[in-house]
């Protein structure tokens, strides 16, 4: 799980072009949106594409997004549970 979290942080930094953010700056349990990393709705779309492209996971129900993208840990857990 820790390995996946670390990998995911790198992918998010690259995909969202978080120039000044390092992996260690991202708290595993901090909210991704609003507070924490301060991501917004465009980032949410980027993360959905990231899940599909890098892990083959489609977020079929948009309502699940709120739970999945709560934090890095919830995202990693979702990947672990759904990875094909």
């Amino acid at each position, binding site marked *: 799980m820790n390995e996946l979290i670390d990998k995911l942080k790198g992918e998010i930094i690259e995909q969202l*072009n978080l*120039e000044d953010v390092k992996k260690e700056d991202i708290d595993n349990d901090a909210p991704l949106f609003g507070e924490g990393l*301060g991501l917004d709705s465009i980032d949410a779309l*980027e993360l959905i594409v990231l899940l599909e*492209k890098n892990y083959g996971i489609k977020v079929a129900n948009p309502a699940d997004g709120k739970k999945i993208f709560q934090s890095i840990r919830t995202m990693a857990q979702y990947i672990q549970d759904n990875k094909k």
Partner: protein
Amino acid sequence: MEAYIRGVGIISPQKTFDTEEFLPEVVEYSNNSLRCMEPSYKDFLNPTLARRMGRVVKMGIAASSACFKDSGIAMPDAIMTGTALGCLEDTEKFLLAIIENDEQFLTPTSFVQSTHNTVSAQIALQLKCMNYNFTYVHKGYSFESSVLDGLMTIAEGNGKNILVGGHDEMTDKYYRVCDRVGYWKKEMVPTMQLINSKSDGSVAGEGAAFFMLSPEASDKNYAKLRSLKFIYKPENQQEIESRISEMLAEKGLTANDIDLVIYGINGDARYDGIYNQLKDSYFKNSTAAYFKHLCGEYQTSGSFAMWLAARILKSKSIPPSVLIGDNRHTSIKNVLIYNSFMGTDHAAFLLSQC
């Protein structure tokens, strides 16, 4: 239609950004591709917003910020920009992603940022400016069209502080595409030798330059922009000279009244003859200068020339690095810019001392 240039802001391949110094030294390039000397954008942009912006968007915002600061105008009555290529870097990212991912997994950011009007839109968003906002995309007339719109807006009394500008970025891919159609020189020519080159092709350039136009006289003004003419695909030298004569006559001037002519000489043997003929005959009594060895060839390079003319008129001095031959005039009152992009889109600007 006339307007004063109240403020300027420019990012170019030279040390021109946010500085009082006027081309104190020239940065020479030897790789046929001049890239801008960019500032640290953290001073102008919120990092959260900046992370989604391509290079030309950041350049545009920083250059326009410098123009606002220089002019002392915080909120323009209108924003007009010109760009031939738009946000090329993001366009390439988006198109490449379509190809590489077989039209799947398309992300929104590069698409959203790739539109040509992103720069003028982002300037307006930063300022929360809801006024007239327009982007002209007309190849070698993109910047000129924005200036024309600015002049017309002022002439119609629809605004007192009009931001006009031009911006284009060069990417490695675009350089290669243009190279294949013969835009650039095959051999490497150091930029300070560009004027002596006898081969086809030029050197690639880029830049972002903004100007605050105003109808009001002020001690702060750089120059008065008195006329702008488009001379599309002139048939011969006679047509060019005749159109320039008409332009000058409208202002009660003749060729002898032009103290300085700034030519768009780009080292391309196919097109430089036009400038040389003007220089050696029609404007034989005027001091001659050129600028594309400083910024390279790009569709909105007229914006660099307008910045150069404005600075010359305000500082009452011509940097030695732009002179062709000697300065024949002790004072510079009237400046004409004659520029063209690849032999088709010719334009002449007339600027005078305030």
